[in-house]
């Protein structure tokens, strides 16, 4: 771990100002992914700006009937919030399927969105990786790819985004609220939040340097049966091979988002429409552009079967 300057931000304005002042600055909140990566020097911030003192730890009702979730709300608290459990059970379920009790106690809402890939080649600094070291090449392509992306990949990167929470946020049409260094704020729909890897897999989101996530907002509840099905090798404390987050209304219409298949939670409008025609039709839409490797081609039938089981459960 490289040496860094450490400061505690007393206000959001101070946090973004500090982040802009110092090149190579990073915000730290829960730290459960950032410190993991700093120990391996995959991340090497020159400045750490501790934002834990900011008042972003509340979950509040919005005027239009939704919820505004502070960026610092811990995963445990978000999953356990009564409004979330009642009105957005998909979000509770996704959070509870992730990590461990200890990690959820520390990990924050914003940090969860910003976690980096678990690609083992990204994690091994001896191996070329375009995401870690732009231009060095992708070791995963042609290597061990069982857990890698089948959608939205590029010649530079086939890594997945590991978050469960983000899959639920995508299905719930969440919006990411930010504060920019110039004091301006913006709202980024989660559908637009993650950037495709393209030639620049190191740039993962639409956030500008120094831009701070302040909250994630959920629109008013949509009801329906909400099911998050995470498929993994071991029964707990493991990343998803694939996951399916679905909201199914009594008339069979609904939404579906996938985890473990791309650099972002994967949702396709045509698949939502196809849900009425069943899992096979919806899966065909979701996976239309899939480019699996020999090792992860199993994710295609797995998604269709899992989605089918989810739809049966939702209707049952």
């Amino acid at each position, binding site marked *: 771990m490289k040496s860094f300057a450490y400061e505690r931000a007393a206000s959001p304005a101070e946090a973004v100002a500090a982040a802009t002042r110092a090149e190579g600055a990073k915000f730290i909140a829960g730290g459960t992914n950032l410190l993991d990566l700093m120990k391996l*020097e995959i991340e090497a911030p020159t400045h750490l700006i501790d934002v834990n003192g900011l008042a972003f730890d509340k979950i509040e009702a919005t005027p239009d009937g939704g919820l505004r979730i502070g960026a610092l709300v811990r995963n445990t608290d978000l999953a356990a919030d009564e409004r979330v459990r009642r009105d957005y059970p998909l979000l509770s379920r996704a959070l509870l399927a992730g990590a461990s009790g200890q990690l959820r106690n520390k990990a924050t809402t914003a940090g969860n969105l910003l976690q980096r890939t678990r690609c083992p080649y990204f994690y091994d600094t001896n191996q070329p990786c375009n995401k870690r070291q732009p231009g060095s090449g992708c070791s995963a392509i042609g290597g061990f790819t069982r857990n890698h992306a089948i959608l939205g990949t590029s010649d530079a990167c086939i890594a997945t985004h590991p978050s469960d929470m983000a899959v639920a946020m995508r299905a719930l049409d969440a919006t990411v609220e930010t504060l920019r260094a110039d004091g301006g704020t913006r709202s980024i729909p989660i559908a637009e939040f993650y950037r495709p890897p393209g030639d620049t897999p190191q740039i993962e989101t639409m956030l500008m340097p120094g831009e701070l996530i302040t909250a994630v907002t959920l629109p008013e509840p949509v009801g329906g049966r909400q099911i998050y099905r995470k498929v993994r*090798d071991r029964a*707990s404390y493991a990343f998803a091979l694939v996951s399916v987050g679905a909201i199914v209304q009594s008339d069979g219409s609904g939404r579906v988002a996938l985890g473990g298949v791309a650099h972002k939670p994967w949702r396709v409008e045509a698949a939502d429409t196809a849900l009425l025609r069943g899992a096979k039709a919806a899966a065909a839409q979701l996976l239309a552009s899939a480019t699996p490797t020999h090792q992860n081609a*199993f994710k295609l039938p*797995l998604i269709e079967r899992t989605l089918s089981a989810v739809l049966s459960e939702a209707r049952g």
Partner: protein
Amino acid sequence: MRFDTPATTNPIDQLRVIGQPISRIDGPLKTTGTAPYAYERHDVVPNQAYGYVVGAAIAKGRIASIDLAQAQAAPGVLAIVTAENAGKLGKGGRNTATLLGGPAIEHYHQAVALVVAETFEQARAAASLVRVDYTRTEGAFDLAAARNSAGTPKSGFGGPPDTSVGDFAKAFAAAPVQLDETYTTPDQSHAMMEPHATIAAWDGERLTVWTSNQMIAWAAGDLAKTLGISRDKVRVMSPFIGGGFGGKLFLRADVVLAALGARAAGRPVKVALTRPLMANNTTHRPATIQRIRIGATGDGKITALGHESWSGDLPGGGPEEAVNQTRLLYAAANRMTAMRLAVLDLAEGNAMRAPGEASGMMALEIAIDEMAEKLGLDPVEFRIRNDTQVDPEQPERPFSQRRLIECLRTGAERFGWNKRQAQPGRMLDGNILVGMGVAAAFRNNLLTKSAARIRLDGSGMVTVETDMTDIGTGSYTIIAQTAAEMMGLPIEKVAVRLGDSTFPVSCGSGGQWGGNNSTAGVYAACVKLREAVAQKLGFNSAEAVFADGQVRLGNRSVSLAEAAGAEGLLAEDGIEYGDLDKKYQQSTFGAHFVEVGVDAATGETRVRRMLAACACGRILNPKTARSQLIGAMTMGVGAALTEELVVDKRTGFFVNHDLASYEVPVHADIPHQDVVFLDEVDPISSPMKAKGVAELGICGVAAAVANAIYNATGVRVRDYPITLDKLIERLPNMQ
């Protein structure tokens, strides 16, 4: 004490303390965090500096150049050790690759430097500034590709590489029912919770290391040899070990580098391997390819049994002896086994819990299940029909005890085996396909000499000292039980000190030999102490009775405290074995029963319940022995379902080298586990009449899981681990 005739009645048979489910005597220390592990010895020597290991970035080749300038200039750096500046180093007799690489690099993450600094943070940061340029050379990393070039290895632990009885080829060809299948097991990692760690301190020419090692005498000898110093200048201490499973049998890089770092820095140095380094830097269980051929008569009698195994290792290494159990487990007049060894440039392959049998049983016990199905026989019944009471390769050697049939029958009854549907895919619980599987358990019982020293003091307290280790096996407790039983004391009056190379040399912990042999050594020392007590009191030692803290002869009774007197009494002895393990085959047996549920949609397999029925000699402590069994059963579940060190065959390393990506079972994976010990004593094994326990528990488990998955789904997978991608396309359609 020489043990060369079967044991007769002795004080252990009282079973006053031995055989009781006594809670571990080290429990209060372990549960309060006060048991000191290697890296934690702030108390033993002041001024400890921190060492951080740099691992090689290539699998095979040479260091072209190494630039330490930046690292040396980094804050807090005290010294940097590399092969270039370490002086001439030897290699431990039990190491295949050198522990400090350079200029030649033999495997990925082989240590190439140790950076020593004032603090851990400084050492870690400076380690990343060590610049190494490598010249890569071609290596062999793919066992399947190297299979045809594999050669015949030397004889090892399990005997010669090839064995043959009768005419296998002819009998197999003539057999009315045949099976010829190939199975694979992957490389696996011990993944013990405590990383390899050492504190080293020099006092002039004398070196002391506080480390985490299963075999103290091996470590001391190989450390001296590596450093080129005299064995008597080295002291090794390892009183608590955070798990080993074979991964800490040998001297490893942490010890050598801590010693070299301490010499270079001129002060004590502590080193722990980082978790991401462990899989490729240390040893692992090597992958195997196993071909099994079975020929049988229509009524289920095996007439031909062939088992061939291929594995790989670095030059000079050895094979995974996966055919060992096949030489002993089932009767067949015509049989052959063969092991072949390929050169692979992956990290060193070596022992992991039940080396040989664990991998071999993964294959053999699926094959037996497949054959039973071909024959239309229940797999329990098929195994029973092919039992043998003698070594099938040397029929003049009977088994000392062999109660496999009783294990199978008892286990089947307790488990409710009769509820199993022979036809696969017939049991459904909601969306879960349910299946049951069985496998035999088999592991040899190994005899090896072991010594101890016992002191009786004026307070009537007995202290046992031996370099035996407790890697979680319960050695502290069963040794205390042995001394308490022998001396007629309550267990509270026994102190046990382990893991110090100044203590008498024990068998150490490995190969499930620790429990029986180390307590037998303590037994021998206790016999000697009893004689010393009797002699001092003028008693005939053969007639003296040791009970309730007293020594009695007729109507005379003296307390042990009084007998010891102010000066105390000391006795030292060990157990040594004659040829009882040549005349008799000594093995442990069991039967594993597993019920799994396979999600009909996703193919995820979860174990629902498991049971092991075991016959493995006298159980010295049913509480700790049961824990050994369930722990091994769980490791078997990991082997069946998730554990695989994935080889990147292009560059030659284990890719998933941390605990997030090498998945071992967690709480949620493990349901209710039952263990049944058959009431057995084996007077041929030792005066304790005990045998090994710890490794029997893993042997066969993975196959029982595989067989249960087959029973649940009708999908037969012969390549471990059985992950859902191997099932998904072939699962019955539930829609």
